[in-house]
C-alpha cells in the first residue's frame, strides 16, 4: 500500500499528540534524575550523577535489586518450563479436549491481581510461605505461565505437525521428539515468553504488597515506599535505570526475533 491512502490532518495530529503523550512523560525522569539539586526538579546549574551514586552505593537499593532479580529468574524458569510443555501438549491434543486448560490459562490475565493477592495472603499463611522467597517465586511463576503459553503457541502455529509425526514414525520417543525436533524450532517463541515472564515478575507489586513484608523486599516494593514517603531525585535515578534495563530486554527480544525470521 504505497502512498495510496494516508490519514487526514485531524487523524495525523491526534496520532502525533497521542504518541507524545505516551513517550514524553516517561522521558521527563531523565533530566530529573540528572538534576544537581537536592529535591525533585530539573537541573539548574548543571548536570550531576550524584543521585545515581546514591542509589548504586545504597545497600538497601542494591539488596532489593538483587532480590528482585533472583526472584524474577527463578519465577521465569518456572513459567517457561510449565508454560512451554503446556503449550506443546495443547497444540498436539485436539482443541476441544484442551478447552478447559486454555480458559484456565487466560484467568491470570483477566482476574485483577488484587483478588489473587488477597487470596494468597490467606492461602500462604498456613503453608508458611508468607514473606518467603519461595512464596513470591511461586506467585510470580504461576501468573507468568500464560505469557509463555501465548508466545510458544504462536510459534507452534507456524510449525508443521508432520515433522513431529515423521520423527515419531521413525521411532523417536516423546522426549527425543521434543528435544531434537520441536524445541529447536520454537526456541525464539520460548525466549520471547521468557522475557515477558521475567518483566512480569520484575515489575510485579500488588502480590508482593500482600505476601511479603520484611525479609523479601523487592525493587517495586521499595519504589512504592519511596513514592509514598519521600519523593527525591534518587527515585528518578532508579526509574532511569529501570527504563534502560527494560529497553535492553526489548532490544534483545527484537534482535532475536529478527535473526530467527532470517
Amino acid at each position, binding site marked *: 500500500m*504505497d502512498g*495510496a*491512502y494516508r490519514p*487526514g490532518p485531524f*487523524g*495525523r495530529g*491526534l496520532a*502525533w499528540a*497521542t504518541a507524545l*503523550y*505516551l513517550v514524553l*512523560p*516517561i522521558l*521527563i*525522569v531523565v533530566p530529573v534524575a540528572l538534576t544537581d539539586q537536592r529535591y525533585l526538579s530539573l537541573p539548574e546549574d548543571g548536570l550531576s550523577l550524584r543521585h545515581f551514586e546514591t542509589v548504586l552505593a545504597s545497600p538497601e537499593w542494591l539488596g532489593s535489586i538483587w532480590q528482585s532479580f533472583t526472584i524474577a529468574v527463578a519465577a521465569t524458569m*518456572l513459567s517457561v518450563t510449565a508454560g512451554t*510443555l503446556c503449550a*506443546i*501438549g*495443547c497444540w498436539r*491434543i*485436539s482443541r476441544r479436549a*484442551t478447552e478447559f486448560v486454555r480458559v*484456565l490459562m487466560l*484467568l*491470570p490475565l*483477566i482476574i*485483577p*491481581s*488484587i*483478588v*489473587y493477592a*488477597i*487470596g494468597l495472603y*490467606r492461602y*500462604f499463611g498456613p503453608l508458611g510461605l508468607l514473606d518467603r522467597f519461595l512464596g513470591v517465586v*511461586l*506467585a510470580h*511463576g504461576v501468573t507468568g505461565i500464560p505469557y509463555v*503459553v*501465548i508466545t510458544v503457541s*504462536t510459534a507452534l502455529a507456524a510449525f508443521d*505437525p508432520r515433522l513431529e509425526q515423521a520423527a515419531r*514414525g521413525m521411532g523417536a520417543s*516423546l522426549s527425543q521428539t521434543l528435544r531434537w525436533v520441536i524445541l529447536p524450532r520454537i526456541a525464539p517463541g520460548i525466549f*520471547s515468553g521468557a522475557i515477558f515472564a521475567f518483566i512480569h515478575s520484575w*515489575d510485579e*507489586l*500488588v502480590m508482593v504488597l*500482600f505476601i511479603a513484608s520484611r525479609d523479601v523486599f523487592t525493587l*517495586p516494593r521499595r*519504589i*512504592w515506599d519511596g*513514592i*509514598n514517603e519521600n519523593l527525591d531525585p534518587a527515585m*528518578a535515578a532508579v*526509574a532511569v535505570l529501570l527504563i534502560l534495563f527494560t*529497553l535492553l*530486554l*526489548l532490544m534483545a527480544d527484537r534482535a532475536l526475533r529478527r535473526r530467527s525470521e532470517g
Partner: protein
Amino acid sequence: MSAAGRPGAGWWLLILPAFLLLVVFYLAPIVQVLAISVTEPEFGLENYERLLTSSAVQRVIFTTLRICIITTALALLLGYAIAYAITLASPRARGWWILAVLVPLWISVLVRAFAWVTLLRRQGLVNNTLMEAGLIGEPLPLVWNEFGIVVGMVHYMVPFAVLPMLSSMREIDPRLLAAARGLGASRGEVFRRVFLPLSLPGVIASGVLVFIFSLGFYITPAILGGGKTLMVAEWISLQILDLIRWGLGTMMATVLVVAILVTLAVFSRIVDLRRIFGAGA
C-alpha cells in the same frame, strides 16, 4: 486425524505441571478467599446486603465505574488514532509508531506513575512552568484527585487499546480505501463509511479489554489518587490490610470478578475473545 497420529497419554503429561500449578496455586487461593465473603463474620449474605444499604460501598462502585468509562472512552479515541496512523503508515514509519506504543507498554507501571507525579504535583514541572510563564496564579490541582487518576490510567491503557484495533485494521484491504476515493468519496466519507465500520470489531475488543483491566486496576489509581479518590481495588486492600474486614473486602473482590466475567460473557457473543487476548506482543 489418522490412527498413527493419535496423541498418546504422554502429551497429556506435558500439560500436567502447568495445570496443577494453576489449580493449586492460582485457582484454589482465589476460590477459597472469595468463599470468605459468605462465611465471615458469619454465614450468610450479610456482606452483600451492604451493596444495597451502605452509601460508602455504593460510592466506591460508582466512582470506579465513572473513572473506568471515562478511561475506556479516552483510551479508545487516542488508541484509535495511533492504530489508524500505524495501519496507513509507510513500512519504515510503521516501525517507529509501533515502538512508541510498545515501549510504554513494557516500562514499569511504577516508573510511569512516578513520572506523572513529578509532572503534575503542586510544585511539579507543569505547575511550575505555567506559574513562571504567568499563565496561572496558583498551582492547579492536577494530581491526587480524579483528574490525575484518569491521566495516568489512560496513559497506561492506550497501548492495550491499540493492539486489538491494530490487528483488526490490518485485515482491511487498503485497496478499498483507494477505490472509495477514486469513486469520488471525500476523505471524511471514506473514513466514516468504509474504514470505521470495518474496524468496529477491533474497537469493541479493545473497549472490553481496557474496561476490564481498568476495573481492577490498583497501582496507578492508588498513587495518583493519593488516597482521596478510592477505586475498588484500593478499597479492597484498605479493608483487608488496614481495617481487617475480610468479609467486606472479599465481598467486593467477588463483585469485581463477577463484573469482569459478566462483561466478558456479554461481549463474547459479539467479538471473538481470542482476538482480545491473542493480540498481545
